[in-house]
C-alpha cells in the first residue's frame, strides 16, 4: 500500500514560505488588501440592502399642498386623496404642526424656529399610506391629477437614490476588485515560481525516481493555500476593527441609517475571507506549477 506522510508536504510548504520570505510577505500583503476591499465593499452593499428594506417597509407618500391653497381647497384635496383606490389612512399635518414637530426635533435649539412662527414657510401636508406596493404608480398618477398640490415626496425616491448609489458603488468596486485579484494572483504566481525554482534540482530528481505530478505539486499548492489562509486571517482582523470603528463613529452621527453589527456578520466574513483567500492561493500556485510538473 502507498503511504505518503502529510507532515512531509506541510513541512515543505512552510520551508518554501520561509525561503522566499520577502515574496511571501508581498503576496500576503497584496491578497490581504484585496480581501479587506472585498469585505468592506460587501459590508457596504449589505448595509445599503438592509436600509433599502427598511425603506420598503414604510409605504408612505407625503403630499405637500400649495401655499396659496385655502382651507376649503385643502379639504377638497383631502377628499380627492381619500377617493384614490388603494390609499389607506390619510393624515393631515398642518404647516403649524409641521413647525411644532421641527421645534421638538431640534430640542434645545428649538427656539430658533420661533422667529418663523409669524411667517411660517412650511406647507400643509398629507401623509398617506398605501396598502399594496403594486399600485404605487397608479396612486402617483392619480395624485398628479389633483390641482393644488405643490410636491409629492415618498421614500421610494430615496430608495431609488440609494439603489442607484448602490449600483454605482458595485460597478466601481467590481472593477477595482477584478484588478486587485489579478494582481494578487500574479504576485502569488511569482512567489510560487521562485519557490519552485529554488527546488528545481530537487524536482528533477523527484521526476527521475518516478514521483507523480501530484506528489511534486502538493507542497507548492499547500504553500499557496497557506499564503491565502494567512492573508484571510489578517484581513479578518483588519476588517473587524475597521468596521467596528466605522460603526461606532457612524452611530453618533446618522441616526436614521441602520448599521449591521459586526457580530451578526463576523462568521460569514471570516469564512468568506478564508474561502476566497485559500482559493486564490491554490489557483495562483496551480498556474505557476503547470510548467514545472509537466514530464
Amino acid at each position, binding site marked *: 500500500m502507498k503511504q505518503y506522510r502529510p507532515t512531509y508536504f506541510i513541512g515543505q510548504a512552510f520551508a518554501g514560505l520561509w525561503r522566499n520570505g520577502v515574496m511571501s510577505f508581498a503576496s500576503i500583503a497584496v491578497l490581504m488588501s484585496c480581501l479587506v476591499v472585498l469585505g468592506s465593499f460587501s459590508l457596504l452593499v449589505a448595509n445599503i440592502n438592509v436600509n433599502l428594506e427598511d425603506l420598503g417597509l414604510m409605504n408612505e407618500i407625503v403630499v405637500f399642498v400649495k401655499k396659496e391653497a385655502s382651507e376649503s381647497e385643502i379639504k377638497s384635496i383631502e377628499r380627492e386623496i381619500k377617493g384614490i383606490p388603494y390609499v389607506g389612512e390619510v393624515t393631515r399635518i398642518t404647516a403649524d404642526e409641521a413647525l411644532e414637530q421641527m421645534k421638538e426635533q431640534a430640542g434645545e435649539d428649538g427656539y430658533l424656529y420661533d422667529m418663523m412662527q409669524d411667517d411660517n414657510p412650511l406647507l400643509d401636508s398629507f401623509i398617506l399610506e398605501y396598502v399594496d406596493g403594486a399600485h404605487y404608480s397608479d396612486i402617483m398618477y392619480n395624485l398628479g391629477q389633483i390641482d393644488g398640490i405643490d410636491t409629492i415626496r415618498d421614500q421610494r425616491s430615496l430608495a431609488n437614490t440609494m439603489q442607484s448609489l448602490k449600483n454605482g458603488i458595485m460597478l466601481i468596486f467590481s472593477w477595482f476588485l477584478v484588478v486587485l485579484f489579478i494582481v494578487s494572483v500574479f504576485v502569488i504566481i511569482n512567489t510560487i515560481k521562485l519557490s519552485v525554482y529554488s527546488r528545481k534540482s530537487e524536482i528533477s*530528481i523527484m521526476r*527521475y*525516481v518516478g514521483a507523480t505530478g501530484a*506528489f511534486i505539486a502538493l507542497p507548492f499548492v499547500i504553500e499557496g493555500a497557506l499564503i491565502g489562509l494567512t492573508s484571510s486571517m489578517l484581513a479578518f482582523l483588519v476588517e473587524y476593527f475597521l468596521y467596528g470603528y466605522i460603526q461606532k463613529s457612524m452611530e453618533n452621527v446618522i441616526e436614521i441609517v441602520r448599521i449591521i453589527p459586526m457580530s451578526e456578520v463576523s462568521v460569514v466574513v471570516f469564512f468568506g475571507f478564508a474561502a476566497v483567500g485559500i482559493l486564490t492561493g491554490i489557483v495562483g500556485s496551480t498556474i505557476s506549477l503547470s510548467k514545472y510538473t509537466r*514530464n
Partner: protein
Amino acid sequence: MIDFTNVVKTYPNGTVALNGVNLHIDDGEFVFVVGASGAGKTTMMKLLLREEKATSGTITVDDTDLSKLSYFKVPYYRRKLGVVFQDFRLFPKKTAYENVAFAMQAVGTPSKKIKRRVPALLNTVSLGEKANSFPHEMSGGEQQRVALARALANNPKIIIADEPTGNIDPKMSLEIMNLLLKINKLGKTVLVVTHEKDLVDYFQQRVIMIDGGQVSDDRVGGMLE
C-alpha cells in the same frame, strides 16, 4: 528489453539528433553507449527517460510503447528505471541515508520498508558506515555510490548511468564500474553512457557506438579507434 525501431528525433529548432536508430537490448545485458559530443547519446537517454518523445519510429521498454505512454503513466514507467548522473544530483542537506530514503518516500513506500531497505542498499554500495554523512563530507566516488544506491531504491529493472565516472578520479571510476557490473549480475539491465575509452576497453562488454544520430557500430569488446 529495450527496442529502438527507426527512431528519429528532430528538435523544434531543426536539429536532427537521432536519424533512424535501430537497436535491441535484452533483459540483463550490460551495454556501453559511446560516441562523440553531439552524436546523439544524450537524446537517446532523454527518449528512454521519456523526457522527450521520438519524432518518428517506436521505442519499447519492457513491453511499454513510449510513444503511447500517457502523461499520467510516465511517473510509473520511470519507476522501472534507475538513473545515475555525472554530477550525482544528491540533496546537499540530506544524509546518504535520507537521500536514498527520499527516492522511496517519493513513490509512497511505507516507512517500515524504507527503514529495512535503505541500510541494505547502502551496504550493497559499501557505504553502510557513511549512512549519516552529508554529501559534502564524502568523496566524489562515495557520492556516486550513494546516487547508485538511490537509483536502485525502487528496485528498477534498468539502470541508466549517464557519464557516471565523469566527475571522479580513475581509481574510483573503476570501482563505480565494478559496482555497475555487480548490479548487472543481480539481474538488472545496465546502460552506461560514457566517452572514456580506457574503461570501455578494460571491461570488454557490448559497445554501441552512436555517430551522427545513428548506430555506427555495435559489438562486444573495446571501442574502435
